[in-house]
């Protein structure tokens, strides 16, 4: 019963946050100084053109009317029509979702695969040469802009060594394997930078639990070291680690926006950048909504995982 209430509480919280996210996106487009339609069409536009575009952007009528139409559209999954691509925003986003999705997933995988063992070992051998090296490298990695690292990778691995293509997603009709091969360098650039944060948190969380009584008890029972570390300590350190992995997922989407542009990937990130440059407001609006919505959803899933991992957690 308590469990069901926890889940419902979080679900309700998620719906409220989603509604606020939608409201913030609505407000952002409306804080544009002047008339967005006039800004988009430029100084030569006629009043009739501006009025037509205003109606297309959903900017006609009173603010409450606009808000109602917008919310109804969002609930139905209708984010409007892209002005420049001349297609529904949902279709434009769906077409470009694949590279962004796989880039984010691969980067997160790379980051986690590096960070978890390094963070655990760092905490276990606190103060050792390995720990010091790992901590220093993690801090350094967190200071590197992922787009700059991406450019260095292109220069080294694509231009000098010729191991990868310099940019793109394999072109039309490219096989799945070919497309994925184009994600190796960008995922490495993003994953390496993101691994820093997860490493630091894994180390901190492990340090927190490694001195706890139950770890000492497990040791005193004669349990092998790796079981003590992986089964008893890691399990209890997982909640903060999961939180930071969730947070990194959001950071990765941010990183993907810039990295996709560097590597010429036709993803949601580069779609947003070109939409901004062309002032295609419906696309910006739709992309913000979908990405923030996904983030809220990921956090909800992580909260649910907390309940599974730690039965004491209730909301």
């Amino acid at each position, binding site marked *: 019963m308590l469990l069901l209430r926890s889940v419902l509480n979080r679900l309700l919280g998620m719906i409220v946050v989603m509604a606020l996210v939608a409201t913030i996106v609505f407000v952002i487009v409306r804080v544009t100084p002047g008339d967005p339609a006039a800004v988009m069409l430029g100084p030569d536009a006629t009043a009739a053109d501006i009025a037509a575009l205003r109606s297309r952007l959903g900017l006609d009528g009173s603010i409450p009317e606009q808000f109602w139409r917008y919310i109804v559209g969002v609930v139905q999954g209708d984010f409007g029509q892209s002005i420049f691509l001349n297609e529904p925003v949902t279709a434009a986003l769906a077409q470009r979702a694949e590279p962004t999705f796989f880039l984010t997933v691969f980067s997160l995988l790379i980051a986690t695969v590096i960070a978890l063992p390094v963070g655990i070992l760092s905490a276990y051998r606190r103060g050792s040469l390995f720990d010091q090296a790992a901590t220093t490298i993690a801090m350094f990695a967190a200071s590197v*802009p992922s787009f700059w690292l991406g450019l260095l990778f292109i220069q080294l691995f694509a231009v000098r060594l010729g191991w990868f293509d310099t940019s793109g997603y394999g072109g039309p009709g490219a096989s799945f394997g070919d497309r994925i091969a184009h994600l190796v360098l960008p995922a490495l650039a993003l994953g390496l930078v993101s691994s820093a944060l997860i490493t630091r948190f894994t180390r901190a969380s492990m340090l927190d639990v490694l001195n706890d009584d139950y770890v000492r008890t497990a040791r005193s029972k004669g349990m092998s070291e790796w079981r003590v570390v992986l089964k008893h300590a890691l399990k209890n350190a997982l909640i903060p680690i999961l939180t930071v992995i969730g947070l990194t997922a959001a950071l990765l989407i941010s990183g993907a926006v*810039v990295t996709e542009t560097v590597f010429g990937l036709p993803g949601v990130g580069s779609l947003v950048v070109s939409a*901004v440059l062309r002032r295609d407001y419906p696309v910006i609006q739709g992309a913000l909504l979908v990405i923030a919505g996904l983030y809220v959803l990921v956090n909800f899933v992580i909260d649910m995982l907390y309940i599974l991992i730690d039965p004491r957690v209730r909301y």
Partner: protein
Amino acid sequence: MAAIATPLQQEPNLFSRLLGRPTAAVGLAVLVIIAVMAILAPIIAPYSPTKLSIAARLHAPDLQHLFGTDDLGRDVFTRMLYAARTSLSVGFAVVVFSGVVGIVLGLTAGFFRKLDTPVSRLIDAMMAFPDILLAIALVAALGATPINVVVALGIVYAPRLARVVRASTLVIRELPYVEAARALGVPTPVILVRHVLRNVTSPILVQGTFIFANTILAEAGLSFLGVGISPDIPTWGTMIAVGRQYMDQAGWIMMFPGAAIVITVLALQLVGDGLRDLLDPRLAKDI
């Protein structure tokens, strides 16, 4: 007993304690050097940041042009000094802006029980947007000027600070001295400023340093994409964007500004870590 007999010694100030930590001291020294170079840019820069010289274009680094020249013959070292002014000013302004907004939101949510849920939900919603994406959208809406970039990044980072301030305020609100102040009839604004805000300065300072570091990275990202500060104003991000087109023949154009970002952000992180260890021992667990 011995401790009681010892005369009270004044605790060294925060700055001295920070200097006592080697890594934080190095970070602080690097930041001071970068800031001084940025401030003195008009005096120490060997060339004009905007002077074009087609004859000197893509000149490799040598004694005449320490970091070489770019595609329009402009001195890369000079432009980097001027770019440091932009990056550091934007970073500082964002910390102040997000500080003011974050403190107001955090204190409100943490101190007034009835407002906690709505303000906290607003903070949650704001934090659902990836930082660069929200900043891009805000700059697109407001217009690409340095002030709007500051406002956009300030709005992006304010919720992070608000969350920290709220968490600390929730604890302080229940402490006996706040209760005593309330019982004595001290007005709420005075309690908030004198008793609560004063005691949440440590986490604000720590978080502010990290926001500074994140802003440098985010501003560089926005400028690199061409959706931030106008390309006419030198920034490290725009310099990398230019250098990108000449990576094969003139790698220095993008290498040096990139290195400047890494060094500045690293220095800020070292200072932030040092501050956190000194001011917030609960969080200091060698993260």
